[in-house]
């Protein structure tokens, strides 16, 4: 039976809660209602209200309480109704959760997850991609699955991880992406990228919902001019799989990075710097970027469509790079 990206997330939580009594979930409307997107549907009935906790609208307390519980040996999974509201818990995440192990050695095994990303006309406050705020915070981990398999495997790995993980699930993929999943327990290790398409002429590095337009652009390029693009899906943003990126850069000599996040300070910069440092001599062209522009996410259709990277823009940049 094929499983949607959303259902994969739900399964991961469900199975981990069955397996490990220290796992519990908390957040707004996650109990009786099953979550704004129904990710936690049925969990209240199954696990009871001690382990499925509807909270007040207090992101600072949700994350703060998760930290306290994690320090006590629990493995809380906190939901942000939309990931945009993680800004209200920014302080607890970046100062308390991220730095605790470094300071007095006590790890904070917790997951904060929520729907990110655009393409659903959500406007400036229901479409954000906040990954870089956390990628730039040593002590956190950040993952962003693109497939149902990874959604499940990465979430299980995140829950089992002994450090705090920000888990970014792309709402555009929730019901649009599905695949057959193995019946048996599996994890996708944090910090390992996946090569989604092998190639020799060009590397496209991406993650999250942008994987699909990248694959489409790669196919176009091959059809058009036989150029073979390698497509890397980062899956984890922190730790970043620099090895896979650098190896591909050395192989193809040409790299572009595609992200839905805004441009300045996006992860493309980090990747460009890494490639400069570790594969400069192999480069046959500049590391290019296809990203959202430096604006909030606009609401109306023509604007949001212009804002988001897509296969056409990616193919255009790829053509330029191939021809470089």
């Amino acid at each position: 039976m094929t499983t949607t990206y959303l259902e994969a997330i739900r399964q991961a939580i469900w199975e981990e809660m069955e397996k490990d009594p220290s796992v519990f979930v908390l957040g707004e409307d996650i109990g009786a209602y099953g979550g704004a997107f129904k990710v936690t549907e049925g969990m209240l009935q199954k696990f009871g209200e001690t382990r499925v906790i509807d909270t007040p609208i207090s992101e600072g307390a949700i994350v703060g309480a998760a930290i306290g519980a994690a320090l006590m040996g629990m493995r809380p999974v906190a939901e942000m109704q939309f990931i945009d509201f993680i800004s209200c818990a920014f302080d607890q995440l970046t100062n308390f959760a991220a730095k605790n192990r470094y300071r007095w050695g006590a790890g904070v095994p917790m997951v904060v997850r929520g729907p990110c990303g655009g393409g659903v006309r959500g406007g400036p406050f229901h479409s954000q991609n906040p990954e870089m705020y956390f990628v730039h915070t040593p002590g956190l981990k950040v993952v962003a699955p693109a497939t149902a398999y990874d959604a499940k495997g990465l979430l299980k790995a995140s829950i089992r991880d002994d450090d705090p993980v920000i888990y970014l699930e792309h709402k555009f993929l929730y019901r649009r992406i599905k695949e057959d999943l193995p019946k048996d327990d599996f994890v996708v290790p944090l910090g390992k990228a996946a090569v989604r398409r092998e190639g020799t002429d060009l590397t496209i590095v991406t993650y999250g919902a942008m994987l699909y337009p990248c694959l489409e652009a790669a196919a176009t390029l091959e059809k058009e001019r036989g150029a073979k693009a390698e497509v890397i899906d980062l899956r984890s943003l922190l730790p970043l799989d620099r090895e896979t990126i650098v190896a591909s850069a050395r192989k193809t000599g040409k790299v572009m990075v595609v992200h839905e996040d805004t441009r300045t300070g996006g992860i493309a910069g980090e990747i460009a710097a890494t490639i400069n440092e570790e594969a400069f001599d192999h480069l046959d062209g500049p590391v290019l970027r296809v990203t959202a522009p430096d604006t909030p996410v606009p609401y109306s259709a023509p604007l949001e469509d212009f804002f988001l990277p897509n296969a056409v823009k990616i193919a255009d940049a790829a053509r330029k790079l191939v021809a470089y």
Partner: protein
Amino acid sequence: MAAASTSRLVPAATTKKPAASGRVRRPGAKGAGIPKGMMPPPDRPLVNPGLSRAQLLEIHRFMRLNRMLEDKLTALYRQGRISGGLYSSLGQEAISVGTAYALAPDDLLAPMIRNIGSMLVRGVTPLDFFQQYMGRYESPTHGKDGTLHFGNVERLSIIGPISHLGTLVPVMAGAALAARLRGEAHRCSLTYVGDGATSTGYFHEGLNFAAVLKLPFILVVENNGYAYSTTCDRQFRVASIAERGPAYGVASESVDGTDVLAVYAATQRAVQRGRRGEGATLLETRCLRMQGHAQHDDMRYVPKALLEAWAKRDPLERYERFLVASGHATPDTLRATAEAIAPELDAAADAAEKCPPPSPEETLKGVYKEEGYEAPWWPAA
């Protein structure tokens, strides 16, 4: 500060607690009843606090317009002619209209997502709203944001909200502070939070800030029983948010939010306190959210009996009964009001639909100040 005498035990709550154990009732859950205190307050007769007939009828028109405008938006939404979030204020119109009507035009007002009525009172037109919900170029946001997420300080004294609940509380305290700094200390500042948003840190920081600086700030709590699916007993452990006034040293009051005249009068009292330099007011208004959180939500979790009880307290019908009973209107004149609004709304919606969307490149404009690109750009402002 008074001297802390010796060990002094303050009772845990001044009134009945919502729940007696760590396990909390869930009204939607199987077999659960209606939590105490969710039923409507006693149905007292409406009392005119001294408004003229013209004012009373104007209030009525705004409430009717509020309702019909939202009905129209819902119809458009179902037809796929608008997208994004659509949040209803059905059953809460008396709060938006009653509070906004009690303000002077230069008092500062910041709506939350269910306060389309407040914005109507301020002079925002149906055309503005339709353009906004349709994401048109001439909308108050050039299509960059949706819903009620806009304002205009210079001409309408409206500050627009963002989605993040509670943020407006300190922002509007700051607006009141600015008015005082500008020598306009008479200008009060008013905004709204839901029962749910009282749990945000901002509620506390902002109200306390206003209290300490003695700002003429009015925080209206629309206690509509639900925050999305969450009932108040999962949100706070007091019977009424008005009980929090003393914790901040500000005046507080709780009124029946289905009685537009009571809401108006309570807001007036708060405004008067503000103008007299007596500081902030926390004003709870009680009601029930009569539709789902937004269009997608079938609110299965709301007990039928609760909806039925509150349906009898429909603020518009109550007010119309009062107007007729007090001789200010007849069923015919009330019907005429509605009949005049309907074609207006249809025309505005059609006009909005014919307006052009923003050009894609508009995306890149206006992140920072640009010469020649100045707000407000929308007709009504």
